[in-house]
């Protein structure tokens, strides 16, 4: 019986495609979770001025504040923005791969 074939050149020759929808979903989860955790961390940490810099997000995310309520509002925005970013990355990637093929 022959030795197993050396197919090292066979792997990594096919180009992967990204699922833009799945990437968007992942981005949404990560974005929402990130803003929620960042906010809650500072709220729990407390101090005389809570989230002096993080609150600047309120300039873009209407209704967002560094508070418990704000953390959930921010999570929603984060999910939206993260989802959009993930989807765009997937879609642009697939588009460029398609054009290059």
């Amino acid at each position: 019986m022959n030795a197993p074939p050396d197919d090292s050149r066979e792997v990594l020759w096919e180009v992967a495609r990204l699922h833009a929808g799945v990437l968007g979903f992942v981005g949404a989860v990560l974005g929402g979770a990130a803003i929620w955790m960042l906010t809650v961390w500072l709220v729990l940490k407390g101090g005389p001025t809570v989230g002096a810099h993080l609150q600047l997000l309120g300039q873009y995310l209407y209704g967002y504040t560094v508070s418990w309520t704000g953390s959930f509002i921010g999570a929603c925005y984060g999910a939206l923005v993260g989802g959009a970013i993930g989807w765009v990355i997937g879609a642009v990637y697939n588009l460029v791969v398609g054009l290059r093929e």
Partner: protein
Amino acid sequence: MEEAVIIGAGPAGLSAAYELGKLGLGATVFEADEHVGGLSRTLNYGGYRFDIGGHRFLSKLPLINEIWHEILGDDFLLRPRQSRIYYRGKFFDYPLKPLNALSGLGPLDGFLIVLSYARAQLRRTDAEDSFEQWVTNRFGRRLYEIFFKTYTEKVWGIPCSEISADWATQRIRNLSLGGALRNALFGHQRGRDGQVITSLTEQFHYPRFGPGMMWERCAERVEQAGGRVMCGVRVERIRHDGGRIECVHVRAAGGETMEVPTPHVISTMPVRDLINALDPEPPEAVRRAANQLRYRDYLTVVLILRRANVFPDNWIYIHSPEVKLGRIQNYKNWSPEMVPDPAYTSLGLEYFLWEKDPEWTWPDEQLVEAGIRDCARIGIVSPNEVEDGTVLRVPKAYPVYDQGYRDSLAVVRQYVQGLRNLQLVGRNGQHHYNNQDHSMLAGLFAARNLAGAQYDVWAVNTDAEYLEEARSAAPAGRLVPTRLQPEPAPLLSAEVVARRVFARLDPVALGAAFACVAAVGLFLATAGLLLKGGPKVGPTLSLLSQYLIGFRVTWTGTVVGCIEAAGIGFGFGYVTARLRNWVLAAGATLLRRRAAAEWRRRPAALG
């Protein structure tokens, strides 16, 4: 002992004969052509094999898949599917992908397509008798004119307003613009019913030496089971009396004739020819109806090119109206063994014509030159790399679904029902644009009917529904359709799985994606503040200038910052993809070394 006669050795006829052999019943198949296979035959020109159209062996019917594997075994290859549309000097993926189509057509066309689609949804025409109405109602006029009208009229030779909506219902029913958009987002090719669209899957089976190989083997099996397959023998007359076929009168290529008595006839010959072959003649109304049925004729110009790789597709649809060429097949991409020398490629240039068209009677040399010109015009082929060519003409290749075909066919069917031992199956036999698997199924059912079953062969079509033996029959003895479970998705080979698992990310593509997000993100962040205004605009955001040289929270500064952000984003994406690919390669190397070590440890007795 008299045997059943089967007219035509295409998929339907040979499947019927094959099934009869399994049932222990004899059959004689008469085929007018020199080769078996009908429209699924494969021809050989100096070692270059070519087909008539494309034949993917892909079916939702478990029985058919079983038969294919039974007949062909290891000579059944699993091939990747790729096809595109050529239109306006550009290539578009097929099935259509919204982003790909948009990038090819441009934003203006894309916008007009969306407007047109919206208008169609709001103001649908109630009448959907024609292909044009059916498609426009679902896709909008703009998309219809771009991707459906020109090609469909090229194939059928009549305006889409004269093509029956049955054609759309049968061939593109399961597609929708909404589905295409969902597919673009989530990547699954599923139809309205939630099932994966069979015709759009990414792989298919194909015989090593073309579809003709399947039917040549099938014919051998028929003969091994005691049947006969006679090529070059044309059925000229079919004598009937008292509502039964008594015999068929045939003529061989050498001119000798024969009268063959038979208890049953399964016919796959074109309906028009069948009715005109009946003796005594059917009533005038029936003959008139049959003669109104039309068939599209087909011609392929095969070019042999001195180039190893011409294009990666199995086939390309040529939608561009400036050439008559309808489709190009790259037989090497169907199976590498279709060409004798891998340094060469054979292409099939397919033209859809009427026999009365001038091109039909052009000399072969003229047709080959025309084919080369069309390909050069498209930019696929350079004339000086063509070494040889040949032409194949196939009259009555496709039944035409014009506006009157259904009524004509109904008249013919009504008459044929009166001939109790005659069954019509197959694409031309039923004047129904079946795929190969459904033609086969109709043939199988016709054969089983000779053994006492009661299948309605006319109910087999491209739908998922088909008939099985009745558990409760209607009073007239006809069967009730039952939907069977679709075949589970075939297991992927280890090779395919490995390639997908270890597929690499394209660094340039990922870099471009991150560049796009970074630039647009920075632009939106800056623009938001600029539009908001205030005494001091973006004091914190301006800190980015410590990383993005030249960035300011101004319109000009935004542009500078976006360019730099795009560069950084591209670098990030590029490096991420390279790193990921490197880690994957390292993982693959590790796995391979472990497998090699494991292999060396295997006992010598196992080989």
